[in-house]
């Protein structure tokens, strides 16, 4: 009887959640304005990134500080193959630029980024912890600096100016950059992208969940917990670490392509070290290895800075009549403070990994035996 109610509850929660999520862009638009829907869209991208990084950091325990590089690889891949940009470098070969369909580039972006993941993973197999963090940090910077400087001798990336006029994404001939009308409702572009990102985020969540509860996921966690014991259990640690790097990078690359299509513009400054750290903080703050925690971390860290940006200046103006602290510096201050408080009081994250919760739920565990 209990299980029937449980399933019913689960179903109900699912449909409620779906309804809320489908309404979310409209509600946000009505209450806060269209700019906020865009912020929510970016939050979804960050969640995808954080879930990808969670595979590397949360499951396999490999501290990666250059994760944004894979996002950059995906973004630039679509920027190059979905814009008029390459005409500049190769006017004869591509008089119109390259305009591959987004749906062809998306899997390519994942694959190429996955390849870069292996490229980063292979030389760092023997490293762990802080040593690995330093190398991956260097890798992230190398990618960004390449993007910044590959405008000469052949203008491949257009350097710091970045690449613009990237083709928007279209789903079955519906162009997501144009306001669409369906069932007599007007659906603006940011709303359409929200639904696209929602679909992809759900996919990423599904993939993460299935990996976590699989033979591969268990092997990753074994490596995280004790690499020597893992190899003594017959786990090929080299291959599985490379697999973790590749899987994480694939998520990053695919989100990158989505980002490029959504934004219509990419430039190296979107892929700075600060972004890598931000994504890592989403994973750590939310709860390493726990999908719900990572999502929470992503939402908080993507949305809170915007809340600050919109509230700090008006608040100071109203109270003091002038702006004393600018929101950007306050953001870093609060962020640093929040991290310290977290490390002191909830070192395992806001929502710690499910294993620990299961552990507390002894009644249920006893029943299962």
């Amino acid at each position, binding site marked *: 009887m209990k299980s029937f109610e449980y399933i019913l509850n689960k179903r109900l929660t699912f449909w409620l959640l779906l309804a809320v999520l489908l309404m979310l862009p409209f509600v946000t638009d009505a209450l806060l304005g269209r700019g906020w829907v865009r912020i929510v869209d970016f939050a979804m991208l960050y969640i995808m990134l954080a879930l990808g990084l969670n595979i590397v950091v949360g499951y396999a325990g490999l501290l990666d500080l250059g994760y944004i590089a894979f996002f950059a690889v995906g973004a630039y891949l679509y920027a190059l193959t979905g814009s008029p940009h390459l005409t500049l470098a190769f006017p004869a070969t591509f008089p119109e630029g390259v305009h591959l369909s987004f749906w062809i580039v998306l899997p390519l972006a994942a694959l190429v980024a996955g390849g870069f993941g292996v490229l980063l993973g292979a030389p760092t197999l023997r490293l762990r912890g802080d040593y690995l963090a330093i190398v991956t940090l260097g890798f992230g910077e190398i990618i960004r600096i390449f993007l910044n400087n590959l405008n000469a001798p052949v203008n491949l990336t257009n350097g710091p100016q970045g690449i613009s006029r990237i083709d928007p994404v279209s789903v079955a001939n519906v162009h997501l950059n144009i306001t669409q009308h369906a069932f007599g409702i007007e659906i603006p572009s940011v709303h359409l992208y929200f639904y696209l990102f929602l679909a992809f985020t759900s996919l990423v969540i599904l*993939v993460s969940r*299935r*990996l976590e509860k*699989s*033979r*591969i*996921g*268990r*092997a990753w*966690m*074994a490596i995280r*917990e*004790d690499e*020597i*014991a*893992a*190899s*003594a*259990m*017959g*786990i*090929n*640690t080299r291959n599985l670490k490379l*697999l973790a790097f590749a*899987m994480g990078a694939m998520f990053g690359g695919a989100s990158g392509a989505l980002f490029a299509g959504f934004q219509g513009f990419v430039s190296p400054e979107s892929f700075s070290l600060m972004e890598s750290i931000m994504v890592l903080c989403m994973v750590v703050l939310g709860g390493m290895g726990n999908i719900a925690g990572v999502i929470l971390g992503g939402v908080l860290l993507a949305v809170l800075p915007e809340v600050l940006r919109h509230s700090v200046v008006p608040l100071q103006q109203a109270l003091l009549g002038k702006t004393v602290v600018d929101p950007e510096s306050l953001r870093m201050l609060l962020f640093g403070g929040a991290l310290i408080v977290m490390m002191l009081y909830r070192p395992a994250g806001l929502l710690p*990994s499910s*294993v*620990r919760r*299961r*552990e507390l739920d*002894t009644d249920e*565990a*006893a029943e*299962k*035996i």
Partner: protein
Amino acid sequence: MTIAIPLLKLSSIGKQFGGLSALSGVSLHIQRGEIYGLIGPNGAGKTTLFNVITGLYQPGAGEFTFNGNRYQACKPHILARAGIARTFQNIRLFANLTALENVMIGRHMRTRAGVFGALLRDRATRGEERAITERARELLRYVGIERPAQTLAKHLSYGEQRRLEIARALATDPLLLALDEPAAGMNATETASLKTLLQTIRTSGVTVLLIEHDVKLIMGLCDRVAVLDYGKKIAEGVPEEVRKDPAVIAAYLGGGDD
């Protein structure tokens, strides 16, 4: 019939750490189905020998044959696949995973589901997962862990952690189970039940190699014993003989030469 071919055969294994010779010219062979003890004073090279045959260290000299194949400079996972499973002197469980998950990880190399299996959850993968869980629960009962399978490994008692390591090692379907001081830190009752467990394991057809300090346990359990001292094998034989060997007594009580 080739009954005489040993399961594990070491020929003059040597291992140097800088100027220190941790092992030199150690040769021994272990027959299928026996419980073979390895004793010696602290620092005699017992754990080094373990690390050599499980691939954590590469032998500097000599070679070893396991189950008819020669191994030289192999990774631990290759030797694990060949059928050597081990436990560690300082327990090395996957501390933040549950007891069940620890044993399930032991099944890793005997199962095959890959990324696509994990993503698609096809029938073969689900069946395999069920089999893994089933076998893991069975092994938990087999080694006598009474606590809920969902208990985190780090929250188990010391004795249970030792048993869990054995269950995890058994999950790899080993031919040779190598135990590095399994009774260390156990009280008399726990040691007695460990002894029963090891006898059951041997009866099930798994050969056991045992490093132990508890002489009573070794004497009561092992078919044959080798004694290491300063990286050399100084005696080998049935426990009663080894016990009376003057070289062994000298090694343990402080020798007469100098």
